[in-house]
């Protein structure tokens, strides 16, 4: 008999944890096309995405990749052309209000209400969610407590962004949907934003945020998805992405002049080369290849400085999106190279 009870408790426990392991966001073949015929633009192409309850999910991609389109569909601002999506177990098109009741939203680049005070913004959001809130404490959390009774029209972009985040946090939502949360923030603000996201995640909130800044996503996310031109390129944990990329590293050399026939690609272990005015940048598959790169380049021109770093994810991001946040792409610089020698 005692055995049965233990079995029962165990089963019950498993069921409990199963229900906690609910899916926060699930999209199924989500597609959005603007226009039709030849002029049609496919903003989102058959997106299948799963965000588990309680995780911090980074939605990464260059501007125009379809990140905002996805968020707009999740919030029922726009209708998908095909496919469906569920948020917190509710269909986005038929039960949007139930979703928004449990979600905190930070819209992209939205202006706040200029004639309302920060406190009135927070109170309004609490009003719509039928929750009671402490505006002062919330504004303290996002770092603008001293501006509580000032009209938001006079706020800087960074303060507006903080206020918007404060509004998103009203009512302790189960899910935070943050569209480019760090836009308009200075480095301190960005760091505080990351800390806030971590705190929220620790309290069990699922955080889904979009960004075109790799380092930001890398710093706080459990998992990321990389989106490019409406297509999902990859969806995985940060660790797996690093491993799958074979620990590639890169090296950057400042040189006095770049020989037009450098031919650095021929060096063993060099995967990618970018040349711009006065700098040579190589992505290597093994750390030892970096030494070979330095020797090779030093034999052909004068090296004035060496910068080496682990940029595995950066390269990955570049490979999937064709955008490198640090240097221009290889093809572009190759075309410019002759000018540099003139």
């Amino acid at each position, binding site marked *: 008999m005692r055995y049965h009870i233990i079995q029962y408790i165990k089963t019950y426990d498993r069921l409990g944890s199963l229900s906690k392991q609910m899916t926060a966001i699930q999209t199924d073949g989500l597609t959005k096309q603007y226009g039709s015929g030849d002029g049609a633009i496919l903003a989102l192409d058959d997106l299948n995405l799963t965000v588990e309850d309680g995780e911090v999910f980074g939605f990464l991609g260059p501007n125009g990749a379809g990140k*905002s*389109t996805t968020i*707009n569909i999740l*919030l*029922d*601002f*726009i*209708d998908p052309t095909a496919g469906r999506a569920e948020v917190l177990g509710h269909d986005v098109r038929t039960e949007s*209000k*139930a979703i*928004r*009741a449990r*979600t905190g*939203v930070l*819209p*992209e*680049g*939205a*202006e*706040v*209400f200029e*004639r*309302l005070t920060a406190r*009135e913004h927070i109170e*309004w*959001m609490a*009003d*719509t*969610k*039928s929750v009671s809130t402490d505006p002062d404490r919330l504004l303290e959390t996002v770092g603008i407590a001293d501006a509580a009774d000032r009209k938001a029209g006079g706020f800087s972009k960074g303060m507006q962004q903080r206020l*918007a985040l404060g*509004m*998103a946090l009203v009512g302790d939502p189960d899910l935070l949907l943050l569209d480019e949360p760090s836009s308009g923030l200075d480095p301190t603000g960005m760091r505080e934003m990351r800390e806030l996201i971590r705190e929220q995640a620790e309290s069990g909130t699922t955080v889904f945020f979009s960004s075109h800044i790799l380092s930001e996503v890398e710093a706080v996310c459990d998992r990321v998805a990389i989106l490019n031109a409406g297509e999902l390129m990859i969806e995985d944990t940060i660790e797996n992405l690093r491993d799958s990329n074979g620990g590639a590293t890169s090296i950057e050399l400042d040189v006095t002049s770049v020989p037009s026939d450098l031919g650095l690609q021929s060096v063993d272990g060099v995967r990618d080369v970018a040349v711009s005015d006065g700098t040579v940048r190589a992505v290597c598959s093994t750390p030892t290849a970096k030494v070979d790169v330095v020797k090779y380049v030093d034999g052909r021109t004068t090296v004035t400085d060496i910068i080496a770093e682990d940029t595995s994810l950066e390269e990955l991001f570049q490979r999937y999106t064709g955008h490198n946040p640090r240097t221009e792409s290889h093809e572009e610089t190759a075309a410019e190279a002759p000018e540099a020698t003139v």
Partner: protein
Amino acid sequence: MSTLAIAKRDFLDVRRAKLVWAPVALYTAFMLLFFWGQSTSSEPNFYAVMWSLLGLGGALVVPLIALVAAYLSIAGERESGRIKFTLGAPVDRSSVILGKLLARGGVVLVGLVVSFVIGTAAAQVLVPQMSFEYGDYAVFIAVTLLYALAYVSVAVAISAAAATRSRAMAGGIGFFFLFNIVWNFLPVSPTQMLEFLLNELGRDPANYENLLELVFSISPTGAYLNSTKLFMSDQFLEMVETANSAGDPFYIQGWFMLVILAAWVVVPLALGYWRFGNAQLG
């Protein structure tokens, strides 16, 4: 619930916009002018003041007050992206429209009531010898508020249907021009066109007086101007030759003008919701 949350926030927001109050000040100024005008007359006539307010307010100032207060109510939020704050909250799109109507309508009604209070108080000083007909005055104020509400509803609906500020403005001006200036004041009005058509068909327009009167009253301004039977004295109406006979069909009687105005509150909102409910807010 969410309608009231929207209305409360929007009222708080828009009452702080100075531009909204400018046309109200204009209405008050004209009211004072009309009262002062009667003070120079040997026999001040209260109905003459209402008549002037009806004409100027109906044709120009009341629509101006309502359109200025409400034409950006939703389109402005869409253009700036603030609509994503509004609809990121658990709020229905219908609540946005109704909430905006309550807030903007509230601001306009408060403005007009303040205007009437100031005007009436000033009249006691300007023309103490004039006798106020408070019963008729109250009816006139009520009808004016309904007329203003109809215009606010039109403006909110246009704003709900427009994606940008400029389109909302074009829509507001277009409505004012078509359903006010053209419909009721220009020689190309539907009434005149109908008369022309009847003449062409060999009918005598005089036999269709009631129908023509109804066509004139279809616009909110026409209904407002034809609501005079509800609050003007028969004596005054005879003087300005718009007296009605007892045998008029129901659709040109005073009370039916209120039905038309009420329809101008409801129908535009329904159309606005039909557009806004499906709008892509990308």
